């Protein structure tokens, strides 16, 4: 029983990493209606900036995360303002091609800037160590990741449900022509949402730099899972993304414990079942 509970907690921390990256993907699709293949690359850039500010420049870990969010947010702003804005009105295939192009460009760019060697700076002292949980050692770092994930969930809920900006964003998502007709600056909303999405991806990347390697191509490791989560939860549905992150994270952890040979299939089986039963996702009406 202790092993079951412990594995569940490990799955929870895995779920929070997945939540951070899928949240950004979800809100970008929800408002802009863009399937952003380059979201994983923004995750990677966030990780590299986190490594640079914390691992190379020696800034405090918290400050390094904030700076990496700002840096990636700025990159996201440029991507949206200069490139994506030009193709909202054309066929979706162009969006896919453009965002896929960003993956190739950013993968090579980080290799040119930071080299091919993976980066992994030391764990900050205050996050090093473990707490006794169910007779085992549970890493403080995983507690930190769970806490950050939950805080982000609350902040995003408050941002979209309780603020003026959130209402504007939701109104734009529901009907961009009507929003524009009543005086909402839709392009500005799009930029803002894309920046928030990029910063969420960066948070997912930066928060893990001391325990997960930062290397060219890590974005593609995350983006597939993030897409699966958004499909399970319902494209553009933030609550769905949160719950499906929990489902995928926790079930993956249990799969590793009880069905190690088939664990990889778990996530795809879940997605296939959801697509068969509720193609619109679990939480989209």
């Amino acid at each position: 029983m202790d092993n079951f509970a412990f594995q569940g907690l490990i799955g929870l921390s895995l779920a929070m990493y997945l939540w951070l990256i899928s949240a950004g993907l979800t809100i970008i699709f929800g408002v802009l209606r863009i399937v952003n293949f380059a979201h994983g690359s923004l995750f990677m850039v966030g990780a590299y900036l986190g490594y640079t500010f914390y691992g190379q420049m020696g800034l405090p870990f918290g400050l390094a995360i904030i700076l990496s969010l700002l840096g990636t947010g700025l990159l996201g702003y440029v991507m949206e303002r200069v490139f994506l804005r030009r193709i909202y009105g054309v066929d979706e295939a162009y969006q896919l091609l453009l965002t896929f192009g960003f993956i190739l460009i950013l993968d090579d760019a980080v290799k040119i800037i930071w080299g091919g060697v993976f980066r992994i700076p030391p764990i900050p002292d205050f996050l090093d160590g473990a707490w006794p949980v169910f007779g085992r050692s549970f890493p403080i770092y995983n507690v930190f990741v769970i806490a950050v994930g939950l805080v982000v969930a609350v902040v995003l809920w408050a941002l979209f449900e309780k603020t003026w900006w959130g209402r504007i964003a939701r109104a734009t998502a529901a009907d961009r022509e009507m929003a524009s007709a009543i005086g909402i600056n839709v392009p500005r909303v799009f930029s803002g949402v894309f920046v928030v999405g990029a910063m969420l991806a960066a948070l997912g990347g930066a928060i893990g730099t001391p325990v997960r390697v930062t290397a060219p191509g890590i974005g593609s490791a995350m983006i597939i899972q993030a897409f699966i989560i958004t499909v399970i939860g319902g494209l553009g549905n933030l609550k769905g993304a949160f719950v499906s992150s929990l489902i995928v994270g926790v079930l993956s952890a249990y799969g590793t414990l009880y069905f190690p040979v088939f664990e990889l299939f778990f996530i795809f089986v879940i997605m296939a079942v959801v697509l068969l039963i509720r193609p619109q996702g679990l939480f989209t009406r």
Partner: protein
Amino acid sequence: MNKKQAVSYISLILGLFLFPTAPVGAQCKLGVPAIKVGAQGAASGPHSDYGRQIEMGATMAMEEINASGGILGCKIDVRFMDDENKAATGVKNARLLITDWGANFLVGTDSSGVAMAIGPVLAELKHIQFFTHAATHRLTEELVAAKGIKEIVRVSVPVYQDAIIAALIFKDRKDIKRWANIGADYEYGYVSWNLFKETLRKYRPDVEFVGEAWAPFLTLDFSPHIAAVMAQKPDAIFATPWAGEAVQLLRQSLGQGVFDNVQVWWQAMGGSVDVLEGITAEVQKDRFKGKLWATARYIHNWPDTADNRAFIDRFRKRWKRFPNYSAETTYSAFFIMKAAVEKSQSLDTAKVLEAMKGMQIRNPGGTRVFRSEDQQFIYNVPAGRPMMDPKYPIPVLGDLKVFPAKDYYRHPPFTPVSATK
């Protein structure tokens, strides 16, 4: 022209006549403008340092050989390509390098999957590739020994190093009875674990293999895998994720207090330079409590010979890094090729292969001996525990366990080893 200028010009002209230079390639006895060597490895993605090290080893070998007159007076030309760790790209590169660029030889390849895809293509193109990293036993046991593809030559030690030497080291540890595996979820991981189990069972029928967790390529979070195998209360862990994945696996295992609860952690390729660089802080603080064991296909602090020390010095001077094993094996492959071409006086595949028969050659990693049956070069690499040495800025492997290569290489005729989970 003043008098001073005139003297300078005359001196120069006289110098050219009196001390004629013999540029490499001008007197190539093989009748080619240059001997072209196509190199490839994983130069993008999380394991891209291995491809980069292949490129560094190849480039340095080329520079040194050309500076000393080339091969039979022929200069070497190297072209490196990124195989992206993908079989299709590796095959495409091999075809392009041989048929389009005109490569005389190929060298490199990190991934077992890529190597298995390239092997049959080499037979079709009738050109030799010196494999310098890919570890699957099937490359030499199946493609060479069983199917007779003679264009495959392997310079690096295969999974025997990852698996059999571990069994030889720990067979006498009576305190270790329960082994668990955190494996790379592809051929390299399956074969290593299966070979380890098969070998250890022969010596220790009493051991139990109590848990397995398989991590796919590009795993960023090993926490579920670590928690899953630790739930089985193992005495020791056998781990095969490599490169950066090995570093994060070890770091994440520290968070779960693994080294308080196991007697041994075997990290198959943990002796590679990039892994040692990544765990330097943890080794300095003795956080692995002396329980971490590792090996590699070459380690920078062994053998302690003048050849190896000089190689390390030159490599560090050239690249500001220590060489990892794919650099040493690639570098050595060039000198094996040089020796074979010089002996055969030819670039013909059959003649070069014939010249390799019985070859014994001293490389930085020690003496390599060519085994004809599977065209595998055999050499010793010990295993040991990562520890600091004042002579090095990164950990070395210490407490070395050295076994004669014949004791842990498999020998023909080969019996099948399962390459599945």
